[in-house]
C-alpha cells in the first residue's frame, strides 16, 4: 500500500486535494473510514480485504464537501457509485480525485473520467459471487417460505435507517419515510411498517443499486436487506440489460424506457 500512501501524500502536499478519504485501523483494530487532511497522517492509510465500506457515501455529506477537493480511495463499487452520483448530478468529477484500487488491491491510475469509465466497462458488474449464491438459495424457496423468511428477518428491524445512511445512493436530504403528508410509511417499527420500508428502499434503488452490499453490512441487527436490492439489480439486467453506475449520463432504468420492454403479466 506504499503507492497509495505516496500518492495521497503527494496530492495533499501539492494541494491538489484538501482531504483524502481512505481506510485506517481504529484503536480496537476495526477498519474504518479515515479523513486525512495532513500529509503527515497519510501513513495511517491502509488497504486490504477488510476495507469494504463504500466510501462514496461521504461525497455528498456537507461537512466532508466543505473540506474542499476530495481524493477518494475507490474500489469498483465506489467508482460505480461515483458514476451514479455524477449521472444524478450530485457531484461533478472535477470535485474529486479517484484513487482507484483494482480487485487485487493494486493502485490504479485513474487519470480522468474516461479512464474510470474504461475500468468499469471491462469489470464484472454482476452481483458479488457470495451474494449470488445466497440469492439463488432464496429463489428456490416457495412463495410461502419466502414470505416467512423475510417476515422473520424484517421483524428484527428497528428502523435505525443504517441501511439508508450507509448507501451512497440514498443521498436525499429528505427520505420518503420522513414525509408525513401523507405518512407513507408508519413511523413505528412493526412487522408491516418494516416491510413497507424495505420495499420502498429496494424500489428506490431499482436500477440504481451498484451491489456494494453496504446496507446489509451496516445493519446492526443483521437483516440481509442488501439481497433485496441485489435481486432487483439482477432483474434490471435480466429485463433491460443495464447495470447501474456505468455511465455519467442519466441511464436509470426507472426514468427511461424502451417501447418494446417485455413483460408477461400485464393482460
Amino acid at each position, binding site marked *: 500500500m506504499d503507492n497509495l500512501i505516496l500518492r495521497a501524500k503527494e496530492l495533499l502536499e501539492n494541494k491538489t486535494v484538501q482531504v483524502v478519504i481512505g481506510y485506517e485501523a481504529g484503536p480496537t483494530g476495526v477498519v474504518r473510514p479515515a*479523513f486525512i487532511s495532513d500529509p503527515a497522517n497519510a501513513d495511517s492509510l491502509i488497504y486490504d480485504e477488510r476495507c469494504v465500506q463504500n466510501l462514496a457515501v461521504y461525497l455528498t*455529506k456537507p461537512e466532508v464537501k466543505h473540506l474542499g477537493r476530495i481524493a477518494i480511495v475507490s474500489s469498483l463499487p465506489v467508482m460505480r457509485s461515483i458514476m451514479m452520483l455524477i449521472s444524478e448530478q450530485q457531484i461533478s468529477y472535477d470535485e474529486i480525485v479517484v484513487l482507484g484500487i483494482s480487485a487485487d488491491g493494486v493502485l490504479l491510475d485513474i487519470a480522468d473520467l474516461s479512464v474510470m469509465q474504461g475500468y468499469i466497462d471491462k469489470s464484472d458488474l454482476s452481483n458479488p459471487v457470495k451474494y449470488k449464491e445466497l440469492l439463488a438459495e432464496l429463489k428456490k424457496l416457495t412463495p410461502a417460505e419466502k414470505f416467512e423468511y423475510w417476515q422473520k428477518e424484517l421483524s428484527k428491524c428497528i428502523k435505525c*435507517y443504517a441501511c439508508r445512511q*450507509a448507501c451512497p445512493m440514498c443521498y436525499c436530504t429528505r427520505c420518503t419515510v420522513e414525509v408525513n403528508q401523507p405518512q407513507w410509511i408508519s*413511523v413505528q417499527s412493526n412487522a408491516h411498517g418494516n416491510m413497507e420500508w424495505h420495499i420502498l428502499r429496494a424500489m428506490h434503488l431499482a436500477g440504481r443499486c451498484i451491489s456494494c452490499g453496504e446496507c446489509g453490512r*451496516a445493519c446492526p441487527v443483521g437483516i440481509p436487506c442488501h439481497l433485496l436490492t441485489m435481486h432487483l439489480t439482477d432483474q434490471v439486467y435480466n429485463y433491460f440489460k443495464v447495470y447501474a453506475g456505468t455511465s455519467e449520463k442519466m441511464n436509470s432504468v426507472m426514468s427511461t424506457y424502451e417501447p418494446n420492454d417485455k413483460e408477461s403479466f400485464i393482460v
Partner: protein
Amino acid sequence: METIRKLIRKQSLEKLYNNLAANRKVYAPVIAADKKAEYKYNPGFADVTFDHIRSTLSVKNIVFPKVENLFFYENSKTESTITDIDLDKIPEVVLWGAHPCDNAAFDTLRSIFCWDTKDEFFSRRLEKLTVIGLGCHSSDEYCFCTSVGLSPSSSRGSDILLTKLQTGDYQAEILTAKGNEIVSSFPDLFEPLTDEKVDITEVKQKFSHKQVTEKLAGAFEHEFWIANSLRCIGCGACAYVCPTCACFDIQDETKGKNGKRYRSWDSCGFGLFTLHTSGHNPRHVQSQRWRQRIMHKFSYMPDRNESLGCVGCGRCSSGCPVDMNIAEQLEALQNI
C-alpha cells in the same frame, strides 16, 4: 433493605428459572442464529446463555417498548371518544441474566422518564419488573463500565444479582424486597454462602467521566466535533441499541374513524429529529447531532438529572457500522 448474600447451586438455577417461567414472563438471553445474543420471552432453560458479553439490543424495551400505544380514539360526526390503555394489564416481567450495565440503565431511564412528571407507562412497567442480574465474568474491548462509575459487579438496578463463583455455582445478592420475595418463594433453592471466590472480569478504566463532564462545559464550539464525526453516517443504530437513550416520537395514526396515538423510539442522530416545520434545522449537520449525543449523556444529564446518561455497555460502538467508538472519543475529549 440490607443486602443478603446467598449461594445458589448451578443445578438450582434451572429450577428457579423454570419455576419463574411457569407463571411469569421471563425475559432471558439466548444465542441467536447469527451467534449474537438476544433476549427472548420464556426460552427453554437449555437455550439461556450465561456467557454472553452483550446482546445486540439492550433490554430497555421492557420498560420503554419500541412502540407504546398511549390511547385509542374513535371519531364520529360530532365528537371523538378516547379509550385509555389499561395499565393494569401490564404483565409482571422477570429480567433474567442481564448484566450490571443494562440493569443500571433502568435507573438512568427513571431519571429521564420521572424527571419532573412521572411517566405512567414507564413507571408502571418498571414497577412490574423484577431484575435478576448477572455479574460479568467476561468482557471485551468495547466494555467501559468502569469509566462511567459502574463495574462488572455493580448491583445498581438489580433485585437479585447473580455472580458466578469459581466453583461454577452462583452467589445471589438479594438487594430489594422484590428480590427477597422471590428468594422467599423458593427457600429450598438458596443456601447460605460460604466464603468463595467470585469469577468477575476486569474492565480497564479508559477515562474519567468527571473530567469529561468538566471538559464538555466549555467544548461546545470545539473543532473536535467536526473532525471526529466526519465518518458518522447519521443512522440511529447507536441510539436504538443504547440502554439509556430515551428519545421518542409521538404520532397519531388514523384509519377511517379509528385511530391511535403512540410513541416510538427516535434518535437525536437523525436530521429529522430537530427539523422545524419551516424547513429550518437547528442541528443541520451530523457533527452537531454527534455533539448533542455526547453532550446529552455526559453534560446535560449530570447537570439536570444528576445521573450520567451512559452505562458503558459499549453497544453503540460495537453496533456502529463506521466504528464511531464512544470510549475512544471520550478518552480523546478528556485531553482536549
